[in-house]
């Protein structure tokens, strides 16, 4: 590995670590009012929905149907691994059918 690649990867690592700690650091410096705390605690569900929603809405028929199956399974309160297994089975089934 030459020096330039080494420094580039090191720089990528530093940039990534900065993004990982920056929000945490800033949240510790500002005054956490109950309202601000509530907003911060609502971010996870918003991000999870944002990650999943576009791929479901723009997905092909098997993906949309499998997503419905996973949502239905998750609502019953099953564990993550169970829902994951159901999702994999569903996508294989629907891809086979369609």
């Amino acid at each position, binding site marked *: 590995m030459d020096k330039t690649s080494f420094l580039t990867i090191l720089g990528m690592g530093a940039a990534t670590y900065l993004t990982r700690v920056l929000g945490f650091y800033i949240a510790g410096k500002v005054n956490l009012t109950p309202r601000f705390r509530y907003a911060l605690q609502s971010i996870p*569900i918003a991000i999870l929905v944002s990650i999943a929603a576009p791929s479901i809405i723009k997905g092909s028929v098997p993906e949309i149907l499998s997503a419905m199956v996973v949502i239905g399974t998750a609502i019953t309160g099953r564990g993550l691994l169970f829902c994951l297994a159901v999702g994999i089975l569903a996508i294989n089934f629907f891809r086979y059918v369609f």
Partner: protein
Amino acid sequence: MNTNYQAFKLGIKEGLPIAIGVAAYGIVYGMLTQGVLTTWETVMSCMVVFAGVSQIMALEMWNAPLPVFAIILSTFIVNIRHILMGASIYPYAEKEKKWVSYFSLFFMVDEGWALTMGKMARTAERIGYLAGTGFILYFLWLASAMIGRQAGAFIPSPEKLGIDFALSAVFITMAVSGFRGRKDIPVVVVAIIVSCLFEHFVGGKWYILAGGIAGGLTAWVSYGQD
């Protein structure tokens, strides 16, 4: 109350199922590094950067002479969503020792963070849990990249086994189980609309950040309305 070490071990155990989906991506990443990065550059990327999307993006830009600053800047921009994720962890880690939190944050990736937030919302889990989930993903990310790099040609494509859907299934499940009832409805609706609009009109990974910010603002506005 758990110690951070107990939380770390629990994070490793409960992070394992998620690692299946991540390992599928790791294998793909390993296959893509062939002919672009040397073995040691691949190992170093996985161990120092540990952020899948930006690592794959860097491969696209990895032509001599290396556009060093463009690669580093793009890495920062792709990972800006981490800033929001780190901020959302803070309320749960206020009382932790600072060095433990900053150490744990090194291992924060989308999947481990999501698992940790779900856990922390249910039980008062320690920040070590984040490090545990991140650590098992870290280990499997490196291992799967090496497997993909060495054995790429012999591995069937993820689509054939349906493993490409694994991460979607994981995020859907975590979104459903993280739902806190009626007060979350405006947040969820706004996040769906904003993320889909950004995904369609802006592209890249910006839709995650946009949906997260829009959801947080919605919660700010709707606070105390119920």
